[in-house]
Structure formats: C-alpha cells, structure tokens
C-alpha cells in the first residue's frame, strides 16, 4: 500500500450510522433513505442535490436530511457513499469501532484459556483481519489510484470504444480499469477487483471534496450511472457500463494523471485523445450530454433521468441537436432532415425549424447563414458603396436575390414596394440629432460618389459578398 487508506472499515452511512457490506449498497441506501424527495420520490445523489431539486422543481426548501440521526442532518454537507464524511466523524467512527471490536474480542478472549497473549493478538486481530480483507482491494487500489484518474478522465469518449478493445487487462493494466467491466462477463475472478475497485476509488480522491461541492450540479449527473452498474453484477448490465465510465470520470478531476492516463488509454482503445476539443467530432458531443446535464442549473434534476437513458444513443448521433435530450426522454432525433420539416404553425413563414426534435423548435430561420447576413440581403441595406453605372444599388441585387434564395420568396416582390417608405424613414434620423455629421459623409451613398480614400476599383465592381453566402444554397 503506497498510500494512506482513508477507508479502513466497512462502509457506513454518516447520516444514520448504519453499516454496510459494500459501498454500492451504502449508496443505494443513502439514495433511498436520505436523498429521496418526499414530494416526488425522486432519488438524488447528495444532500445538497436533494435541496436543489426540491427548490427548483417543487419550490420547497428542505433543511434537514430525511431519516438522519440528530447531529447528522446537515443538508449542506456533500456526502456520497463514504466520500465527503468529515474527518472528525471518521475518526470518531473508527474509535467507536475499535472500542466495539475490542470489547467483543475481550469478551471472546475471556471465554478462551489464554487471556493475556490473546489480548494482544486479538487487538491486532480485527485490524489485521480488516487489513487482510482490504488487501486484495488495496492491491488494486494502488495501481488504480495513481493512474486511476486517467481511465476516469478519458472515459467519456471511451466507453463505447472501451467495449471492443478490452481483452485481458487485469491488474497489470490499471488504466484500463474502467474499460474492464464490459469485458468482465467472461472473467469471474476479475469481478472482484472491479467490485472492489469502485469503492476504493470513490474515497480515494483526497482533493475532491473541496472541489466537489461547487460542482453540485454535475454531481447528480455523474454518480447516477456509476453506482448503478457497480451495484448490480456487472455482466448483467452490459449496457450501463458504457455510460458508467463516462459519468464517473468527472468525479476524479486529478489533473496531471488524467492527461497521461488518457493517452495510455488510447493505445489499447480507439478512444479520443485527452484534449476533448480536438479531432473527433464525436468527442465534444459525447462530453456534451454530461456537460449539458452538469451545467444546466435549472434542469439539473429533470435532465438527469432522461440523460441516463439517452446517453448512449446520444453519442452515436453527434449531428443531432441537444434540445431533445432535456425536453423529453423520447429522443426523437431521427428526423434529421431539417429543411424538409414543415413549419408547424404559420405556413407563410419562411422561418422554419432548424432543430430536429419534435419537442423543441429553434426560433431561427432555416438558412445556415447568420441573422445579420440575412438581414443584410435586404435591398434597404444594399445601398452600400455606390457602384458605377448603377443608379440604385438595390436593383441588380434584388434580381439576384430572387433567383438565388428560394426560401426567401417573399422578398423580391416586396422589395420594390418596401423601398419607398424606407427612404422617408432614413431621411429623418440624422436630422434629429444635434449636428455632428462630418462634412464628407452624406448619410446614404446613393448617387454621389463618396468613394472613401482607400477604395480601389475592384471592390466597387464586386457584388456585395452578402450575396455569395446565399449563392451557396
């Protein structure tokens, strides 16, 4: 053991002091007993998570953790499994445990023949037993924790890839740890380390507790999937581990190790590099579902449950929009044809939907150009630099607009009519302002040659580039 073990005892619940065999079970217990919303029975992951959920969804405040013993009801303490337990409570617990075991050992030894010798042995006994029990775990902890971050870190993009590329990578390949669960089904002996892994990993993050609380919102998203697969027998949940590493990753933000570990991951797995912003188009997307869950403060709790189910499909449809994930759990992505989707409401409105989901609508015209480009195509804004030989700059572009931009059929016929009132409108404002217009700048460069000093011939002859984006379509 190269590191001080934070957990030398069986998992126990800080809120009600109960003991558990396994941290997964402990977490299930916490979720069901302490972090369950009394209004909608939704299970959250932490006390603060429950508080936020009640506030945001039910507009109710909650100030104590349900079913907690007095003194342990602090709703603001972020405790998850064995993680986040204040040090002094840990020590108290250890002391209590030792006392209890000493008492029980003494009672036992009293029944035995040799008392004195056994006392020493027995006091050491429980601890050695505990240590012995922990050994196998510890053995995995060591390789895990150092590079432990890496698999977690690189996880988001990896899980689907992790499936395929994970042959025999047992203890000797620590970075692959998270990839193991999917490969585990055929390796019963390997089950134990996995099972043993998860718990040690959780508390193994000394740096995390301070870092975690601020990330309240991400929390609920992450642990959601992590305990789920860990709790059940791993082979029986092959689908879940895909999302599992993706979710547990953010729990372990140890920086330096993440970078190195992920790279080592890439050797065995066709996974995206640590720099999630680069290369693979899938990468940013697979990060997004979590990130989206993490960061959207308002929809944290509602998006959680939907996100879990829709995470794997999300990763394979990178082109599809996010909105459907949060707005409903029915990921209605498939209808990707954007332009083909008819506007549900006003038929005369060319501004249709660009989003794919049936449950959300993008309030933005369908064309891929920016709003400013669209607006700039209007003839009223076309009175740019006067082009030689064109009395009205708007005239030729109008015709071009009509031909090039089919979606804007409404425009060309309207343009001639539009111009006139606009003239009047433009005429007014400059006069209204107290004077400052510099001499050489007439408001609208219509006929008068107002070629700015640097203007050369070619730009004048060019059609306004605003036309060219339209020309693409």
């Amino acid at each position, binding site marked *: 053991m190269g590191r001080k073990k934070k957990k030398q005892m069986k998992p126990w619940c800080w809120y009600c002091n109960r003991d558990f065999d396994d941290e997964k079970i402990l977490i299930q217990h916490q979720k069901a007993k302490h972090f369950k919303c009394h209004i909608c029975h939704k299970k959250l992951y932490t006390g*603060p998570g429950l508080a936020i959920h009640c506030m945001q*969804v039910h507009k109710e405040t909650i100030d104590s953790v349900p079913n907690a013993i007095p003194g342990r009801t602090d709703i603001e303490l*972020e405790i998850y499994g064995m993680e986040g337990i204040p040090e002094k409570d840990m020590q108290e617990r250890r002391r209590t445990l030792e006392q209890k075991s000493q008492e029980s050992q003494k009672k036992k030894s009293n029944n035995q023949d040799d008392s004195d010798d056994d006392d020493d042995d027995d006091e050491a006994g429980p601890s050695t037993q505990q240590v012995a029990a922990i050994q196998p775990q510890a053995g995995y902890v060591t390789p895990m924790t150092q590079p432990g971050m890496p698999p977690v870190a690189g996880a988001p993009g990896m899980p689907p890839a992790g499936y395929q590329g994970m042959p025999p990578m047992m203890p000797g390949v620590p970075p692959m740890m998270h990839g193991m669960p999917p490969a585990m089904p055929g390796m019963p002996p390997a089950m134990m380390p996995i099972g043993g892994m998860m718990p040690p990993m959780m508390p193994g993050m000394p740096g995390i507790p301070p870092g975690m609380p*601020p990330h*309240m919102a*991400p929390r609920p998203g992450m642990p959601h999937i992590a305990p789920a697969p860990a709790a059940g027998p791993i082979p029986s949940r092959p689908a879940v581990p895909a999302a599992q590493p993706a979710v547990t990753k953010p729990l372990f*933000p140890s*920086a330096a190790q*993440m970078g190195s570990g992920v790279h080592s991951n890439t050797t065995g797995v066709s996974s995206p590099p640590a720099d*999630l*912003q*680069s290369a*693979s188009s899938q990468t*940013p*997307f697979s*990060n997004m579902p979590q990130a*989206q869950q*993490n960061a959207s*403060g308002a929809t944290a709790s509602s998006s959680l449950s939907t996100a879990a189910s829709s995470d794997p499909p999300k990763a394979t449809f990178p082109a599809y*929009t*996010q909105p459907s994930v*949060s*707005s409903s759990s029915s990921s209605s992505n498939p209808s990707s044809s954007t332009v083909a989707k008819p506007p*549900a409401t006003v038929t*005369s*409105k060319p*501004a249709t939907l*660009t989003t794919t*989901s*049936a*449950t*959300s609508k*993008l*309030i*933005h015209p369908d064309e*891929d150009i*920016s*709003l*400013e*480009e669209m*607006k*700039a195509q209007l003839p009223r*804004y076309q009175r*740019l*630099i006067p082009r030689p030989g064109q009395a009205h700059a708007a005239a030729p572009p109008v015709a071009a607009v009509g031909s090039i931009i089919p979606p804007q059929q409404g425009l060309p016929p*309207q343009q001639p009519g539009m111009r006139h*009132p*606009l003239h009047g*409108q433009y005429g007014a*404002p400059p006069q*209204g302002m*107290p004077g400052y*217009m*510099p001499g050489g700048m007439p408001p*609208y*460069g219509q006929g008068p040659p107002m070629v700015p*000093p640097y203007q050369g011939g070619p*730009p004048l002859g060019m059609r*306004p*580039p605003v036309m060219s984006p339209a020309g693409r379509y």
Partner: protein
Amino acid sequence: MSLFGTNSSFGTGGTGVFGSTTTDSHNPMKDVEVTSPPDDSISCLAFSPPTMPGNFLIAGSWANDVRCWEVQDNGQTVPKAQQMHTGPVLDVCWSDDGSKVFTASCDKTAKMWDLNSNQAMQIAQHDGPIKAIHWIKAPNYSCVMTGSWDKTLKFWDTRSPNPMMSLQMPERCYCADVVYPMAVVATAERGLIVYQLETQPSEFRRIDSPLKHQHRCVAIFKDKQNKPTGFALGSIEGRVAIHYINPPNPAKDNFTFKCHRSNGTNTTTPQDIYAVNAISFHPVHGTLATVGSDGRFSFWDKDARTKLKTSEQLDQPITACCFNHNGNIFAYASSYDWSKGHEYYNPQKKNYIFLRNAAEELKPRNKK
C-alpha cells in the same frame, strides 16, 4: 455608480411606464431608457474604458449610424454625437485611451472616430462586410483587428491604408473577442480559432466547436490573475459553452449550458429555443450576462455553474449587451434581430437601449 433606480429619466417620456393604455412590455424590467435611441436594430454596444472619466456609451445600428451618449451618475443619458457609415454598422469598439471609437460596417469599411474632433476617417477596407472590430494594445504594437465576411482577419495600423497583417480564416467571421494576449474568432460552419497576440498576431489553435449549432457570439473571460483563460461561446440554439484554453481537466472544466428557452419544465408544448445574441462578462465579478432572441437577459455564474437571474420577457429580442468599465451598469438593446425572419420585421417598431444597475445582481454565488 450611485443612483440608477426609479428616477424618471425616461427620455422618450411616457412610453408605457406610467399607466399607458396598452400593457407595454417593451420595458418590463423598468430599466432606464436611453434617450434618442437609433431608428433601426441595434447591433452593438460599447462603454468607454476606465481611462476616461465618466461613462460614455456607443451604439451601432442598422440605420448606418453610430451614436454616442454620456451616461451620468444619476442615470440621465445625454446624446453627444453621431457618425454615419454607408451601410449598417455591425460592431464598435473603443481604443484603450478612450479617445477613439472604431466602427465596422456592412459597407466593408471600418472607421476611426476621433471623439474630440468629431471626425471619422476610414482605416480599413475589406471585400465584405466587417462583422467584428477590436482594438489591440500590445506592449510592442497597437492595431485594430477586423473580422469580415470575406473570410479574412486583418490588422490595421490606423495610419496606413494597407493592413499590417491579413490572416485567412476558414469561413466568414461571425464574432470575435480580444483580451490581450488572446483573441478568439468564431466563424460560420462552427469554426473556432484562437489567436495569440504577443509579438504579432498568429493563429494559436483551431478548436472543435463545443456547440452543435451556428456560432453567434463569443466573449473571453479571465482568471483570478486577470489573464484571459477561456471564452464563452453562444450559438443560435440557446446554448452557451464555457471553454477553457488549457484546463487541467478539459472534460470536467469545459461545459455547456442551456439558456434562452421557453417552457422550462413543461414538456407538453414544444420548447422554443432562441439564439443567444450576445455575451458579456462582468469586469469585476467574472460572472456573465447573456441576452437572447427571446427578449430576456440572464446572469450566470460560470464557476458555481448556476444561474443568478433571468429577466422578464421584453416584447422584442435583445440584440446586444455591454457592461461599463466598473461593472455598475449593464446596458442591453431591444430590437428585432431577424430571428423570426422577414415577416416579423416591423420598421415602425421602436428600438430601445436600457441601462440597469448591475452592481448587486452579478455578484457570484457563494460556493458551499
């Protein structure tokens, strides 16, 4: 900034504040209206830098004009000056000493407006409308950076008609931000490029966009040591991505959040998703404001990853926003941004710029 509150400095007078007949939702937040707003959509707002005493607000609009107001401590806004382009003005910025204003327009030129003499001269020329303009003040050089729909990013010494440098971009520039020594440009087709400006501007990295939709606005944020460390990128799909340039843990540090959407928890009706039109960071607190086509503004704390406030809905989209140099004033402009296409454009509809006291509402949320 002291009083900004309820003094009746509504310059246009009686526009729906004091019991008008119609329920006027043009100013549901009851913020101070700037007098003599532009007559067409406002594309950009900029407050004067701290090097100048007082607060001066510049707004560029689709009416081809750039207007300047002095914002007084009691909330009064006094129109000071105006300049014109021959095409809609798309972006404005101040020089670091506050003596010049740079304006970029659809007329493919950028101008330098000397406020003291009230003279404007052209300093830049592109082959297409200039969408973004920023002043760069480096220890060894100063220049104006212009990003255009002609897919180039050019750097101009204001004294010369030729650019000091011209960098090719993969696509049209849609938005940019500069905080020395970093510059970020977001382009069409979801392009995202970071430039480093030390010694001379050069492309630093092309980033895969964290967003899946068209980029619309970008704003750089700084770390606790006041160095630019990342940026916020907004798209047309009601989402902002917070992206760090070199985070210790990219997967955890970078995130996106949804904003400017309707029907938060109601899933029976389709959710309307609006574009994020602008993002501004509070100069002191580091919290950010976003404004969207839904006609609302929201304040966010990116470190606590929480929303601080969302406004009531205005009857028009909010197209631009800006903080003053000390973060006491938040300015936002209400005008049509074309998000619903041509049909919803009403040239008769008034455009507004509102000023709000931002000293309290943008304080970061205490992390537990």
